[in-house]
């Protein structure tokens, strides 16, 4: 509680008060009280969701799991099926990390899927076809991923082009390069296993209590932990949020916003290359036609996970939950015998509801 009629102001330092302000002497002297009790239950909910951005997706995920366990029963709830869902969301989970980073900066990256496939093709061709040691081929893939991200980043920060347009263009470019470099040929799983088992290592299964996980799932969790740490516990992470929130304010605060943006695009490219490694582990073979839906699926996961496309708001954990929600709904609907087209239909509704909720939550006022 602060007394603003103020003992700290010595008499000579105090300005003569304007006549119209004299009534203020009798005012309440507390300055910045924090009103912690919003009026209606709805407002309270709005504030709660505002303060906990992952609350909504977490609730939806819980409801989805509960709902499908009633509808489908034991088959859905079996540890094998649940671990299968986790396996299925691994790739989108990893690409979703890259997408989340970009979306927090108020951008969008349509090229993430293309970067991933290009990187997997580079790793495969070098290791399998050209006989380069697999770890070296892997590093080359990471470099290509970082390079693709750097191209996006340069176009966004130097030419100041909108990220949507930049990545729409590079999506086609990277995909074309991928077809050219691979010669549109698929490397068979057994060839990869013989020449470069290292590339498939993330597909190694681990059985725990009847549930089947792969190294890839743990790798995804590790990546999530690392990126969560960077976003929440380092200055760079705070700057990424600040740049997405209000670039002008961030610049005036002394943040080199263009440098932060560039780093984000490069990091996203590298994460996509790591996603390529997980992709090879998951499907075994290396195909230029793989991962076609990763672009839009990653955006779906990010949006359902509570990130705002206007930037400044979003979390890695939210994206993981978003990917899991999509996985649970697809799997549950499939087990219920619902046609694939209605699965798509449901995912579409989820996206629109998620964005509508975001708009509502953003309207929270002091």
């Amino acid at each position, binding site marked *: 509680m*602060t007394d603003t009629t103020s003992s700290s102001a010595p008499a000579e330092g105090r*300005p003569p008060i304007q006549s119209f302000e004299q009534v203020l002497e009798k*005012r309440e002297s507390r*300055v910045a009280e*924090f009103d912690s009790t919003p009026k209606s239950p709805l407002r309270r909910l709005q504030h709660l969701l*505002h303060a906990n951005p992952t609350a909504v997706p977490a609730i939806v995920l819980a409801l989805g799991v509960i709902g499908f366990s009633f509808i489908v029963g034991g088959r859905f709830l079996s540890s094998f099926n649940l671990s299968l869902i986790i396996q299925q969301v691994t790739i989108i989970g990893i690409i979703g990390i890259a997408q989340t980073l970009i979306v927090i900066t108020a951008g969008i990256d349509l090229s993430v899927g293309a970067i991933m496939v290009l990187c997997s093709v580079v790793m495969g061709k070098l290791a399998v076809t050209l006989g380069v040691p697999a770890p070296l081929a892997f590093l080359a893939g990471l470099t290509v991923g970082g390079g693709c991200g750097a191209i996006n980043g340069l176009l966004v920060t130097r030419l100041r082009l909108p990220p949507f347009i930049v990545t729409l263009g590079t999506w086609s470019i990277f995909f074309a390069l991928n077809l050219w470099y691979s010669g549109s040929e698929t490397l068979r799983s057994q060839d990869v296993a013989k020449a470069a088992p290292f590339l498939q290592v993330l597909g190694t299964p681990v059985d725990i209590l009847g549930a089947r996980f792969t190294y890839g799932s743990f790798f995804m969790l590790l990546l999530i932990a690392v990126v969560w740490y960077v976003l929440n516990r380092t200055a760079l992470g705070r700057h990424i949020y600040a740049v997405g929130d*209000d670039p002008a*304010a*961030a610049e005036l605060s002394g943040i080199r916003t263009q440098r932060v943006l560039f780093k984000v695009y490069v990091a996203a490219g590298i994460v996509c290359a790591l996603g390529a490694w997980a992709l090879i582990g998951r499907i075994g073979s290396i195909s230029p036609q793989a991962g076609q839906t990763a672009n839009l699926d990653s955006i779906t996961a990010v949006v359902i996970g509570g990130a705002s496309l206007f930037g400044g708001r979003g979390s890695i954990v939210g994206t993981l939950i978003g990917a899991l929600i999509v996985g649970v709904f697809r799997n549950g609907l499939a087990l219920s015998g619902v046609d694939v087209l209605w699965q798509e239909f449901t995912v579409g509704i989820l996206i629109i509801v998620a964005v509508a909720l975001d708009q509502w939550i953003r309207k929270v006022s002091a």
Partner: protein
Amino acid sequence: MSTLSHTQPAPPTALHTAAPVPVLAARGMVKRYGRVTAMDHADFDLYPGEILAVIGDNGAGKSSLIRALSGALVPDDGEILMDGQPVRFGSPLDAQKAGIETVHQSLALSPSLSIADNMFLGREIRRSGVMGSVFRMLDRPAMQKVARDKLTELGLMTVQSINQPVETLSGGQRQGVAVARAAAFGSRVVIMDEPTAALGVKESRRVLELILEVRRRGLPIVLISHNMPHVFEIADRIHIHRLGRRLCVIDPKAHTMSDAVAYMTGAKLPEEQLAA
């Protein structure tokens, strides 16, 4: 009556012991945007320990002047001096490093970040040891403590949570956070651009008290404002900007508000110019 000073600004009334070397000065600054001249050989002087108000009509070029002094704009020509030494500000970061803190009219806060994060935005404190140097880990407890101390020190607020996002604060509270940030980190000069423009009567009074509090700590302040009563109340000198340059500097005790408005709008010329 004649405390007008175009060529030789009067020393500040607040600190008579101060050396007459301006802490922050500008000479002949020019900025053109196509055919529009925002600054036309503008000069500026800020002396130690004073509150200098900068007033001018809309479009007089006040904002360009202030943006140049805070590093947000690079002038086409002219120079900025600190303690008589030429300096060059290529970005807001350069000005901050030189000890100049600015409270922008937009406040330059990130709405979704917390009060503590905002106060330390761009100058975060890292943990000591390996956690800080290798893992770049922020020292959140330390930053939260400093942020809370600074807000309390300025008599600013009773904060329930220093981790509350800034967007949940009222306009006055946000202003308080921005002022506290400037006061906490400004080691040489604090610039405030229309700090009371968006505030109610009660909150404006609070910000004026804050400005005096900052001066009491020995920091000179540049106050840009349209509010004549406020300007005449707390300024030691008033810099009147007109048509992209400094028209004159007046002593608020020797002039009336109508004089200032008349100079500012061109309805009347300062005596010195009439003589010239």
